[in-house]
């Protein structure tokens, strides 16, 4: 085994053990907290509650409702986001005026628009979908914009020198080079969508994982509440990992291009 391979292996091994100890520490800390605060259940009760929720199927319809809100909001965010991104990418004046406004969108807590969305779309699912879309549209717009601007000038010159029509230029030059950045925007957008629908459910809802967290808190069933939060965190990690895998496959050439 060559020198650095060995060192890398040793490094990984060390990292793994450190992570294990940190996890153990967290576990003990959690146990400690549950002693100090009677309100807090010990970790194993949370894990068994999680198991119960899944096997008992109590969580299924809530999971479906949240996923329905997230995915619908995601669809709207993509259509709206890419459309606005293209609009700004094409026209310089629009970009000069609206890009700073969209950039400051990140600094504004978007949850304050939830009451407005509830007044417009009612207390049902539509306001959750709207909130999810509102949270996700910003990264999609900005990454689409980046995608257009990053198209290499030389490629456009090549296309022009070969008399490519506007449609051909878009399909064969713009589109392929925009796929990776736009997809990255969609991955971030999906995370925000999930956040948006959960927050809306937390505020006022009848169904959904966000509602479940508030509901169990109201009933004082803290083990179940923490179990739902744990499941939500795992779900986010899975969604993120899945999208990252697709993204790497989509820009297979890009990964090698960068190395």
């Amino acid at each position, binding site marked *: 085994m060559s020198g650095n391979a060995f060192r890398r292996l040793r490094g990984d091994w060390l990292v793994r053990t450190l992570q294990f100890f940190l996890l153990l520490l967290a576990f003990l800390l959690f146990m400690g907290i549950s002693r100090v605060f009677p309100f807090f259940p010990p970790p194993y009760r949370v894990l068994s509650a999680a198991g119960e929720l899944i096997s008992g199927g109590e969580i299924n319809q809530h999971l479906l409702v949240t996923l329905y809100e997230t995915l619908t909001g995601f669809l709207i965010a993509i259509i709206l986001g890419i459309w606005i991104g293209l609009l700004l990418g094409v026209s310089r004046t629009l970009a000069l005026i609206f890009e700073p406004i969209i950039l400051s969108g990140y600094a504004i807590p978007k949850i304050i628009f939830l009451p407005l969305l509830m007044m417009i779309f009612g207390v049902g699912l539509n306001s959750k979908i709207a909130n999810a879309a509102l949270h996700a549209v910003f990264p999609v717009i900005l990454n689409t914009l980046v995608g257009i601007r990053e198209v290499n000038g030389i490629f456009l010159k090549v296309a022009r020198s070969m008399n490519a029509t506007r449609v051909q230029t878009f399909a064969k030059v713009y589109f392929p080079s925009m796929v990776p950045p736009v997809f990255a925007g969609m991955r971030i957008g999906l995370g925000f969508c999930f956040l948006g629908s959960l927050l809306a459910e937390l505020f006022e809802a009848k169904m959904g994982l966000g509602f479940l967290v508030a509901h169990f808190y109201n009933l004082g069933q803290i083990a179940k509440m923490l179990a739902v939060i744990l499941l939500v965190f795992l779900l986010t990690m899975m969604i993120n990992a899945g999208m990252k895998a697709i993204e790497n496959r989509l820009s297979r050439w890009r990964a*090698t*291009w960068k190395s």
Partner: protein
Amino acid sequence: MEELISVKRVSKIFEDSGVNTGGSVEAVGKVDFQVRRGEFVSLLGPSGCGKSTLLDIVAGLEPPTSGEVLIAGQTVKGPHPKTAMVFQSMSVFPWRTALENVEFGIELKGMEKKARRERARQVTQLVGLAGFEDKYPSQLSGGMNQRLAIARALALDPEILLMDEPFGALDEQTRFLMGLELLRIWEETRKTILFVTHSIAEAIQLSDRVLVMSARPSVIREEIPILLPRPRTIETLTTEIATQIERRIWDILKVEAAKGMTPDGR
């Protein structure tokens, strides 16, 4: 051999609408020259003398401010079907495999897939990339990617190849070998080549005639025929005559290159 390209009193002034410099930049002065069919002519000049702009004008990518360019007797309005261009920087599409890159031009023309694939395979072999058809540009060396760019141009079966310092980004040795490779392809395909470079050695190694250009605004200072036997090899390029020609070109360029050294001259 009839005249294929004729450039008549072409000049180019960029109305710089940008805010920083303001005013206009005269890139190309008054330029006249012709290229006969099958000839290998190079445009040699100091960096920033507007030779690439001139090539863009011949290729129809840039309209001249005055004068005109005729290809096979027709005035050039836009990219001419009879010409194909090869650029300096990495101009192959990283998301396409080598073969797909070569097909790009004929794909745009709408050539049917089977014929297109066959043509592309043939040209890929011609430029010596057989066996690399399915590799991505990121998996190929700089030299191989430039061969791809040449193959992409050749696939269009143009009469004229317009090459803008295609080997500029390569190291000395690879550049010389790519030069020999280009000459082999040129002899095999009998194309007419207009080649832009800032390297005297490369101009001498490759061309029948060298048009030495002045600093900006560029004009043709002198036209120097390269009376060296073909095919060009290390021996022919190190003969007494070759070094004489080199010294003569260097005398002209020394003055022009100095102009480019002042801070504002780009």
